[in-house]
């Protein structure tokens, strides 16, 4: 049977210097911890990261920032990672902030092939450059470009060998959105089962969006 299961090392083959990398997780919940470690271990530099927060200095996606592997970060807040704030101040890390709901919707748009979204112009944490407001549907709106990435890393509870994914409770968060918005999607899962064993009605991310699967705690990076 064909299977997308690979080792951690094989999975991160496509993460190179300068790769645009999108990640699921909210804080540490639903963060693909093994894949982050594998990327760290590989030693790639100058990454562009796209995710809802900057994790913590020593936990989650924040590790890549702490180790100086990240050049650019597109996110909604970095409050839990003072290291990211420090690097931003020193000019080592370029940070772009976006309100959280708009951020999620930009990734959703990226995942379904829509080039941008129309949002209420007044909802913004900071001035949006090049986003001219216009009247639409009786509201003052602006366009926000969709977000996509070269590689996406997500965490799920279960996968089947085809890559269909089922998530767990609040560990879902950005994961199903990220899974669809990357050219190459890698899923870190607790368990992989043969295709046919997951109830098609329960699948959240169809396997067509998933390229590689690694099992958490299984296989060395």
């Amino acid at each position, binding site marked *: 049977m064909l299977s997308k299961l690979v080792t951690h090392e094989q999975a991160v083959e496509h993460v190179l210097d300068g790769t645009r990398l999108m990640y699921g997780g909210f804080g540490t919940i639903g963060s693909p911890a093994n894949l982050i470690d594998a990327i760290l271990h590989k030693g790639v530099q100058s990454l562009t990261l796209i995710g809802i927060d900057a994790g913590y200095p020593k936990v989650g996606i924040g590790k890549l920032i702490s180790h100086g592997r990240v050049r650019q970060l597109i996110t*909604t807040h970095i*409050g839990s990672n003072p290291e990211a704030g420090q690097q931003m101040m020193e000019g080592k890390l370029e940070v772009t902030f976006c309100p*959280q*709901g708009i951020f999620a919707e930009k990734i959703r748009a990226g995942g379904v092939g829509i080039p941008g979204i129309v949002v209420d112009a*007044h*909802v913004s944490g900071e001035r949006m450059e090049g986003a001219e407001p216009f009247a639409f549907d009786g509201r003052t709106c602006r366009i926000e470009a969709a977000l996509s990435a070269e590689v996406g890393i997500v965490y799920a509870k279960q996968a089947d060998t085809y890559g269909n994914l089922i998530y767990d*409770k*609040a560990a879902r*968060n950005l994961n199903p*959105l990220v899974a669809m918005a990357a050219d190459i999607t890698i899923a870190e899962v607790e368990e992989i089962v043969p295709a046919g064993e997951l109830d098609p009605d329960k699948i959240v991310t169809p396997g067509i969006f998933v390229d590689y699967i690694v099992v958490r705690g299984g296989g060395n990076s």
Partner: protein
Amino acid sequence: MGLEMDQRNMVAWRAAKEVAPGMAVNLGIGIPELVADFIPHEWQVMFHSVNGILGVGPTPLKGEEDQHISNAGGAPVTVVPGASYFDSTIAYGMIRRKKLDAAFIGALQVNRRGDLANWIVPGSRVHGIGGGAELAYYAKKVIVLMSHVNQAGEPKIRRECTLPLTAKGCVDLIITERAVIEVTQRGLLLTEVMYPYTLENVITHTGAPLMISENLQMVE
């Protein structure tokens, strides 16, 4: 924010009176987190968390935490009967579609028009706005819970905000340890003064003009 625990609880207790059975409510970080403790379970209030839960329940007992059930701040929580999990676009879809009856949020400053500043602490680094602006703009009712003055003793309710704004004209009600103030079309309306503070004390420590309600209550 410089308040004693009993004062924080007092604000949360008063805030809970703004909640009715069956409402969907978002609680922000800080004093708002305490509000849930004052709402009877049988009211079936659904607490919303932006990380993808509707129906957040109490803190779990030690040893019974589920690593995949937390609030937006990452603290372990439980869920109540009727709860659901969903992705982040749905979490904000609920907000944007005005399905939330109330959002309780902390603040650094509020002005007489209900502008809210709560995302940049003076002298500290920029952290990013997170979901603050969207909650403030789209919740049906925005209720600020905060200390009446800052740690320097300066009024947090002001004629104009001096800190960067999170959202403009969004605040409906302000509850502090000293007073309850409505934001109306005509300005700020003082409706309650909390014991042991006096009307004079509240006026002195408020940096914007206050209209005094005809039904002003002195709350014991």
